[in-house]
């Protein structure tokens, strides 16, 4: 027995050391600057080799496919994968360095724009603080997420509602960055995430196979081992992958165009920022890109994927001294922020002359102040970012959102006393007040509590969606109101395609739009009899059929004049005289003999007012919801507690049906430094003259930063730039004004200096002559 145990122990030790040796061999770089050809077998999450012709094949697993050669555990310790591993909020800054862009939980209906991050940055909420589990976080943000981290669902015990067993985990998606193939499709990735096909997403996005079905529609007890759903082949179709067999060779290996340094386009999928309203043709790329420098040339990393962020102070914060070389100052000036010399001119970085620029600028301001982001204008401009505004996802649906409102550049002094250009946004959310504490509420809680108040757009969309089920008519259903033509967009939201061809109406008109022609769904009666034409009757019966699911407790009928038309059991349309009058044709619900409009005019009016607009909430609606929250609480709890809504830099409370605004720390903006785009030197701030900043009314100091939020209100926070810069505005106005006489002052000093030189010469020349003659006399 002892011998057997000893034998097993020796075998284990030998095996471990052999494996460790293999691993070490594969991890170390042999010195070649080439990238190996990545033709290799694919493995699934059970570490089984994928056979593409096998119908029940699992999706590929990067943990086992890429992990065969590259240590998956080491890779997933990297910056892109470690946010949820931040030790604790208290000492987070020590591990996470300079603030970066947060994730923003955006919910249009409830007016929520909540900045979230696991990194513990100042002013940004940790997801668990607002009740978001890893599952919730992954569903919200994995569209622009490289996988692993929270997306591996390690907190499933804490969230019984999570569906990780159905969806699978999202492993680190190596292909998102390292696949140089034009087949790599981030939009496909986002679609698979929206369908909760987590474990299938990387296979689909890489183009290796086609994924069908939706995990989001599968029952909670379904797992991948259950295979196809035999009971439902149309709606609840189980996710499955059909591999493109032509991508595999005879040994079931597949070739991937893998690059060590990710292509810029892959980085930009999640890290784009563009000014709002600017046409694509007007946007310049970063000056480094134009010079041939790739993102990963500066933002480099080893296998540990600790990607350099490139800011000054990173070397110290992350305890990695070599990071100091890969900052603006490191490459271009050959020095660290502390003035220590490092290798200058990496990647051909030119050394700037900064002619005439007092060196104090280089000490008190980050390089990005003058060189990065949009040029200084009268006010900061609105920008959209990939992750906050869901950019770069293409398809029929429009994913991009106008919210959250982000502005830049706002010059903010950082903790080291250095000025940096920042992007800034203002949190917007509903909260329960507990003394001084402001406790954010989840959008779902507000949606539930505000039914009938904040869901006008949803109600209209629901009706339009039901009408769209009529596939026999070409075009799509619309509701016209005022000058608006309300439509359901491809991504299921309410849109408007205001058309000049329709007659403005002050009551909602249900209609059908084909090209630019808008035809009312309910036509007038034919002739003098109160009867529709036979064609109209057939169509209206079909419409009533499609609308029927909206009122399961009763039926949908048509009101026109003093008549009611309803569908008979035989499928015909029966018109009877009603005691009520309907001046305009309208769809009604009939429940227990009571008639109600299918959509109230006020609901359509609210929807028409807010549709497409950036600010979906009105003060009236917010006051109503706050009063309702106070009396009803949240899901029956906290009745009588005080609630508030935060938007545009203010905290709003309800009092006697009206809103009162006040300042509050929770309403303060959050900001993060701008790194890119770097502009050419000729477009740098101060190139034209010092007075770009140093003048009495330079926006650099006096611009007003107006808060942006989802609430339509006059009560918004307006903060002058110099408050974020923490400078004395009076002094800077005076100093700026002095630049008006600076040229004269320079000439004045030049003149006085020149005269002094002449005086010196006038008296020194005779002295020199005297010395010379004295010497020559002695010689005699």
């Amino acid at each position: 027995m002892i011998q057997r145990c000893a034998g097993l122990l020796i075998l284990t030790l030998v095996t471990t050391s052999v494996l460790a040796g293999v691993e070490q061999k594969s991890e170390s770089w042999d010195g070649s600057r080439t990238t190996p050809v990545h033709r290799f077998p694919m493995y699934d999450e059970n570490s089984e080799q994928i056979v593409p012709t096998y119908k029940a094949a699992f999706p590929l697993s990067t943990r086992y496919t890429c992990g065969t050669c590259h240590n998956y555990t080491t890779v997933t310790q990297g910056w892109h994968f470690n946010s949820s591993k931040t030790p604790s909020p208290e000492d987070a800054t020590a591990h996470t360095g300079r603030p970066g862009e947060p994730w923003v939980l955006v919910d249009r209906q409830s007016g929520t724009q909540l900045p979230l991050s696991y990194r513990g940055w100042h002013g940004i909420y940790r997801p668990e603080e607002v009740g978001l589990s890893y599952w919730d976080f992954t569903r919200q943000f994995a569209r622009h997420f490289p996988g692993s981290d929270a997306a591996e669902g390690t907190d499933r015990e804490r969230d019984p509602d999570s569906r990780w067993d159905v969806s699978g985990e999202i492993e680190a998606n190596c292909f998102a960055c390292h696949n140089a193939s034009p087949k790599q499709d981030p939009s496909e990735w986002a679609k698979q995430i929206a369908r909760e096909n987590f474990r299938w997403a990387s296979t689909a996005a890489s183009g290796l196979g086609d994924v069908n079905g939706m995990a989001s529609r599968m029952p909670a007890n379904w797992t991948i081992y259950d295979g196809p759903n035999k009971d439902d082949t149309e709606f609840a179709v189980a996710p499955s992958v059909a591999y493109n067999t032509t991508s595999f060779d005879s040994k079931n290996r597949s070739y991937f165009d893998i690059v060590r340094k990710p292509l810029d386009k892959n980085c930009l999928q999640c890290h784009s920022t563009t000014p709002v309203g600017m046409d694509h043709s007007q946007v310049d790329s970063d000056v480094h890109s134009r010079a041939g420098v790739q993102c990963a040339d500066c933002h480099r990393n080893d296998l540990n994927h600790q990607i350099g962020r490139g800011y000054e102070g990173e070397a110290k914060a992350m305890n990695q001294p070599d990071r100091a070389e890969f900052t603006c100052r490191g490459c271009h000036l050959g020095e660290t922020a502390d003035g220590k010399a490092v290798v200058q001119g990496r990647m051909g970085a030119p050394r700037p002359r900064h002619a005439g620029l007092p060196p104090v600028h280089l000490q008190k301001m980050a390089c990005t102040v003058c060189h990065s982001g949009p040029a200084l204008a009268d006010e900061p401009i609105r920008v959209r970012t990939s992750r906050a505004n869901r950019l770069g996802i293409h398809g029929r649906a429009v994913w991009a959102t106008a919210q959250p409102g982000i502005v830049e550049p706002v010059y903010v002094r950082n903790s080291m006393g250095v000025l940096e250009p920042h992007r800034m946004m203002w949190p917007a959310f509903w909260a329960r007040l507990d003394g001084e504490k402001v406790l954010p509420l989840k959008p779902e809680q507000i949606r539930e509590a505000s039914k009938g108040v904040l869901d006008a757009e949803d109600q209209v969309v629901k009706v339009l969606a039901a009408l769209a089920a009529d596939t026999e008519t070409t075009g799509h259903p619309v509701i016209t109101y005022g000058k608006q033509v309300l439509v359901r967009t491809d991504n299921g939201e309410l849109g408007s395609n205001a058309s000049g061809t329709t007659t403005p109406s002050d009551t909602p008109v249900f209609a059908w739009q084909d090209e630019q022609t808008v035809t009312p769904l309910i036509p007038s009666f034919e002739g003098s009899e109160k009867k529709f034409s036979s064609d109209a009757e057939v169509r209206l019966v079909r419409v009533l059929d499609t609308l029927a699911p909206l009122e399961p407790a009763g039926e949908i009928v048509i009101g026109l004049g003093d008549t009611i038309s309803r569908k008979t059991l035989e499928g015909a349309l029966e018109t009877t005289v009603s005691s009520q009058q309907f001046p305009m044709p309208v769809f009604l619900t009939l429940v227990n003999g009571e008639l109600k409009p299918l959509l109230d005019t006020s609901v359509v009016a609210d929807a028409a007012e807010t549709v497409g607009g950036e600010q979906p909430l009105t003060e009236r609606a917010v006051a109503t919801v706050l009063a309702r929250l106070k009396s009803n609480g949240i899901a029956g709890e906290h009745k009588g507690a005080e609630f508030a809504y935060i938007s545009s830099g203010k905290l709003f409370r309800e009092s006697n049906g009206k809103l009162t605004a006040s300042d509050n720390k929770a309403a303060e903006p959050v900001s993060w430094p701008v790194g890119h785009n770097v502009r050419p030197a000729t477009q740098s701030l101060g190139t034209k003259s010092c007075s770009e900043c140093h003048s009495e009314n330079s926006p650099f100091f006096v611009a007003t930063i107006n808060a942006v939020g989802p609430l339509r209100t006059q009560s918004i926070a307006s903060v002058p730039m110099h408050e974020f810069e923490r400078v004395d505005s009076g002094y800077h106005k005076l100093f700026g004004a002095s630049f008006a006489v600076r040229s004269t002052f320079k000439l004045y000093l030049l003149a006085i200096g020149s005269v002094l030189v002449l005086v010196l010469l006038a008296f020194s020349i005779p002295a020199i002559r005297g010395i010379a003659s004295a010497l020559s006399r002695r010689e005699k």
Partner: protein
Amino acid sequence: MSRYPFIDRLICLAVLLLMVILGVSGFLPLAQPGARIEGYWLLTHVVAAGAFAAAFLAMAFMRAQRHSASVAASGGWIRAAAFWGLVISVILLIASADLQMTPVPDTRGELLLTRIHIVAAISAVIWGVLYLVIRPRHA
């Protein structure tokens, strides 16, 4: 002796006063390590510098002859040296400040000019004190 002794003394007093202001506004902010002249200290320094330049030019005109080589040879050469040392220092101060405000020097040049300005300022203070302390024998 000057032809206009009152004006001469008045100008001399102004130069002395402005030198004190410039010294305080220039050196006091630098007392802390890593600190630099900025804010209202800087504004005061610049305004005083403009006045000082004019006052000093006037003083140079009024006293240059008194400290010329021929007069200095007759005895007061140390004071004359202090005077001309002061003149040279002030020229350097003006030149370094003026050049710094032009779009000519690069960052290294700017830093060099700052150093020159500081050294010239220390030198001006030394020559100024020397000039003040050493009195002419006939005085």
